């Protein structure tokens, strides 16, 4: 890492009071973004989306966490966009309480986990009916997981 980038990262680490593990994560992400985009880490750290978090008003730990999430979105831009789109689709389904959809971790597989929490047969019936009613939206989510859309 060049000297300017080292200074920039040190400044961020001090501002956000990054812990050792967080610094290691940030270093790895910055290194890989730099290779992907052929820009020095200092230029990445000066991006508006990161500066807003670094100079923001939240607590140190909250800003540190948001900083790493944002850095990760820069490192994995298409994964971040795909995840956001899928979450929006899930949210738009407005599933009733007791029914939840879980995306595969980091979209590492194409399988959706559907959970139903029911205390009696009537609740189960309502949950299944709700899922059946939303089958079109669910199909759209399966399509997105399968690279369509």
């Amino acid at each position: 890492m060049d000297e300017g980038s080292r200074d920039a990262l040190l400044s961020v680490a001090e501002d956000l009071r990054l812990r050792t593990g967080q610094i290691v994560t940030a270093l790895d992400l910055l290194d890989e973004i730099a290779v992907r985009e052929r820009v020095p880490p200092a230029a990445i750290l000066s991006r508006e989306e990161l500066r807003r978090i670094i100079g923001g008003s939240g607590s140190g730990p909250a800003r540190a966490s948001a900083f790493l999430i944002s850095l990760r979105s820069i490192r994995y831009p298409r994964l971040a966009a795909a995840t956001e789109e899928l979450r929006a689709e899930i949210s738009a389904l407005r599933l009733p309480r007791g029914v939840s959809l879980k995306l595969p971790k980091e979209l590492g597989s194409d399988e959706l986990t559907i959970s139903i929490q029911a205390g009696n047969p009537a609740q189960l019936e309502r949950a299944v009916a709700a899922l059946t009613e939303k089958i079109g939206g669910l199909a759209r989510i399966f399509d997105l997981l399968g690279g369509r859309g």
Partner: protein
Amino acid sequence: MFELDEVIIERRCAETVLARRIVGAIPSGVLVREIDDAREAVLPARHASDPFGVGKRRMVVCRRKSPFLMACPAGSAKFACCGYLVLALASNCPMDCSYCFLQEYLADNPAFQVYANYTDAFGELDKLAAGSPERSFRVGTGELADSLAFDSMTAMSRDLVEFFSARENLTLELKTKTSEIENLLNADPRGRVMVSWTLSPDAVFRACEHRTAPPASRIAAARAVLDAGYRIAFHFDPLIAYEGAERDYLELIDRLTDSIPPEKTSFVSMGTLRMTPGLRAAARRRFPGDPMLCGEEVLGRDGRLRAFAPLRIRLYRALAERFKRAGAEIPAYLCMEPASIHERVFGDTPAKPAIIGQRLAEA
């Protein structure tokens, strides 16, 4: 010709046909020495900054003590496999692809080994063929080494073609990223030998596939061996899902089908880049500036990093559809992917590995 620093010959192999061929073809300036026991010579040079890279430049001619024939090391019950059998006639490769799994697989014995007793493998193959005469087997030499790199020195391909050309239920697959086909052009495969090339777009070739033949040369070599009576196949493996990959791979397929009519291709395989975290770390250490090693891979259930599912399925499907549109139903399979991904891409359930292996052997 690939560069070597030295050739080390196990003394008991010094008079073998292979050792004599190699000694006769070694370029001047390459050190040749004999040793009693090759075990030490294949170990990594611990003092070197890149022991794996050093190993590639040290050819060791020795005896193989283990069986030559083995199941493909990539095979697993978790995947829809292709029934490929591996014939280990050499270990490691003079080319240096940044993504190569050998960087991890052979980290403890990285020397470029060629086995002087390789014709012993023929006995194993005859036993296999005689044991199931009703089945067809596809056997390849390109898993732990490139099948044709250094063939100008070893001429192994000539013996292999001669052997396989006389076996009705065995198909040899020579898998390569080179254009070293001279020995093949002078042999008659009688339909029993297939030559396959890994194909990548120029962007991947330039970033990752060091010391390999350019993609255009591989396609030209494929055309030449096809005209000489060989069957041909192509591996789009690893597929690397960089930004712009879909456009580049489709363009590559167009270039391929412009040169080689699709109906002349026996099969294509596809498999996105997959790396264990250990392999990725080793590859990043050796090729820190390679952007292809910093793609959007995530950890899967099998402990390997791959492009996240929607991204890679989309890429597989785009390639499969382009081949379909090219006008011929080319048999295709996915390497190291579960049946569910196969179904997403091809729309059907994959057959059992032995059946796929049989189909590919006869394709």
